[in-house]
């Protein structure tokens, strides 16, 4: 176990120095699993994956398999996917509907609310010893259905999810809400899962507002793969933010976002030139959202990461990516693609094609990100390499509090979010109390440099 002093040496966030050990060291990785992933709120799935009673979806929390299930009464649960008898996975299907999870090993069976129901030869072998009620599937400490997304933590003493989010909430909502401003209302149209040989934090950090990595995407920017590429436009995305003030915002619990504040006139920018129908739909959504939210509609999402490993792209291509830790140098990425449930069919069709050409392992944009993470990991594993920290000194002492939006804000590209992310990571490694994890007390150096 790393001592407090060692953690402070690894994470010198005020100086903008983060040790490479965080990205390659297997001992630190074990420690993260124990101290970060057993306490922090983690993304598990989406209600649209389990719409009916007895529906389930196999998911992950940290390096462990969990089942997201909806019981007979419609209540949502998250359980460890492991039989209480000998640990066999009780569910080996990705998604479906079942009244029972039957363990293939000795046939102990569990209801979709987690209760142990069947124990073969119970009367002869267990009567008087085994109380079934004590051997339900292991359930998470807390869970929440937040605007359709399901999050859970193993820590019963964790703060409620909304308190955990703090000021991040407003930005996450931008990714989860309907394009016309109605709260929630999204659905998952597909999940991609793939393994990349890099540390999970490189993915999480990329979505913390690392806008600086734009040069990685030069190839797609040159050829144009965006929603107006067929009409001859270069670039990989739409043009909605061309008149906006970009904001990079850090929140005390370790979350961070890159969002955009539209100019005062808050006018729609043509973005879907390939398809007049799609253009008309998104223009309609934009105007409708403006009408519904008023001044608040000026804030629009780009990317963000909810500490520790749930990232979103809030504009198109819209979705949530979870960076599941496999080892210090291996990550299993799960990307959940989101659309408005009641969007017209032609909009969904357009979006799903855009999503696949942009994101995930077949996505022309994301491929170049993943290449970077792999070789950054590989080239940081050496004995000499590990002695030299990564540089996080970008825009040191630039961010201000609550200007022009709540949080620690920079209006230029900035690594203050990453610095705060690792500062918070260090608090978890030191077993800090929840007040400190939320940034409410005793965080050394918290306000000294942002």
């Amino acid at each position: 176990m790393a001592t407090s002093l060692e953690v402070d040496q690894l994470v010198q966030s005020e100086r903008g120095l983060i040790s490479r050990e965080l990205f390659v060291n297997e001992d630190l990785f074990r420690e993260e699993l124990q101290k970060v992933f057993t306490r922090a709120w983690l993304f598990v799935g989406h209600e649209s994956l389990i719409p009916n009673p007895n529906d389930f979806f196999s998911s992950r929390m940290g390096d462990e398999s969990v089942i997201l299930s909806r019981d007979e009464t419609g209540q949502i649960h998250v359980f460890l996917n492991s039989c209480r008898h000998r640990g066999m996975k009780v569910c080996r299907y990705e998604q479906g509907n079942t009244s029972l999870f039957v363990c293939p090993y000795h046939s102990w069976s569990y209801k979709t609310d987690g209760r142990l129901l069947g124990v073969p030869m119970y009367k002869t072998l267990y009567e008087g010893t085994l109380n079934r009620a004590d051997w339900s599937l292991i359930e998470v400490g807390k869970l929440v259905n937040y605007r359709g997304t399901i999050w859970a933590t193993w820590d019963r003493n964790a703060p409620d999810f909304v308190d955990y989010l703090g000021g991040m909430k407003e930005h996450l909502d931008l990714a989860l809400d309907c394009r016309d401003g109605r709260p929630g209302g999204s659905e998952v149209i597909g999940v991609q899962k793939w393994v990349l040989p890099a540390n999970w934090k490189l993915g999480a950090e990329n979505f913390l507002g690392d806008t600086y990595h734009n040069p990685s995407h030069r190839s797609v920017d040159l050829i144009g793969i965006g929603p107006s590429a067929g009409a001859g436009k270069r670039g990989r995305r739409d043009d909605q933010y061309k008149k906006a003030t970009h904001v990079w915002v850090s929140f005390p619990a370790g979350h961070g976002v890159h969002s955009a504040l539209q100019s005062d006139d808050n006018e729609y920018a043509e973005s879907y030139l390939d398809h007049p129908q799609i253009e008309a739909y998104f223009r309609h959504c934009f105007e409708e959202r403006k009408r519904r939210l008023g001044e608040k509609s000026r804030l629009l999402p780009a990317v963000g990461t909810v500490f520790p490993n749930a990232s979103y792209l809030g504009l198109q291509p819209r979705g949530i990516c979870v960076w599941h830790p496999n080892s210090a140098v291996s990550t299993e990425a799960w990307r959940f693609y989101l659309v408005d449930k009641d969007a017209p069919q032609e909009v969904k069709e357009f979006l799903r094609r855009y999503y696949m050409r942009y994101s995930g392992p077949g996505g022309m944009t994301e491929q170049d990100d993943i290449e970077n993470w792999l070789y950054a990991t590989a080239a940081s594993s050496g004995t000499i390499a590990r002695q030299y920290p990564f540089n996080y000194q970008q825009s040191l002492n630039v961010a201000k509090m609550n200007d022009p939006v709540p949080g620690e804000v920079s209006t230029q590209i900035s690594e203050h979010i990453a610095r705060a992310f690792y500062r918070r990571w260090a608090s978890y490694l030191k077993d800090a109390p929840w007040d400190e994890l939320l940034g409410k007390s005793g965080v050394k150096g918290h306000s000294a440099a942002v």
Partner: protein
Amino acid sequence: MSVANAQESVTAQWLLQQEIADFLYAEADLLDERHFREWLDLLAEDVSYFMPIRRNVKFGQQPELENTISGSGISWFDDDKWTLTKRVEQILTGVHYAEEPLSRVSHLISNVRIIRASPSAEGAQEVTAKSRFLVYQNRQEYETNIFAGKRIDVLRRAGMSWQITKREIVLDQNVLLAKNLTIFF
């Protein structure tokens, strides 16, 4: 059918199978030799290039639920010719870092069988062929991927040669065990 006619029909099947196999080998060679633009020329303007995601489903549900379907939801690829052309253009920029420097790739295509030929094997205008692929990819020094699976191709006669109008690539993996899919199948 007379014996002679039956023999002619078997011969036509054989010839067609060999012709299609030769076409698929030559196509694979274009990819492995990195003649990407020439490879695009083998794809019909209305080509559908599709790689489903394979899911772990309960016995009996495989036909409906194991593979994602073309035309709905998310797969690994569900591309049209425009998108495939973009993928080629991206490689040819020289700054698509996930393919710069280029991967070394070999496509081993085998088990080629004609599933359907219309109107008939003799003078076929459209052919459905099934095959197996084993694709070896190596990049930089150590990064190596092996992709194995089935392909179902629909080919349309184009003069002396063929064009691919439909390709379904059924990769035998659930979680993708490669970091990227930067190559063509």
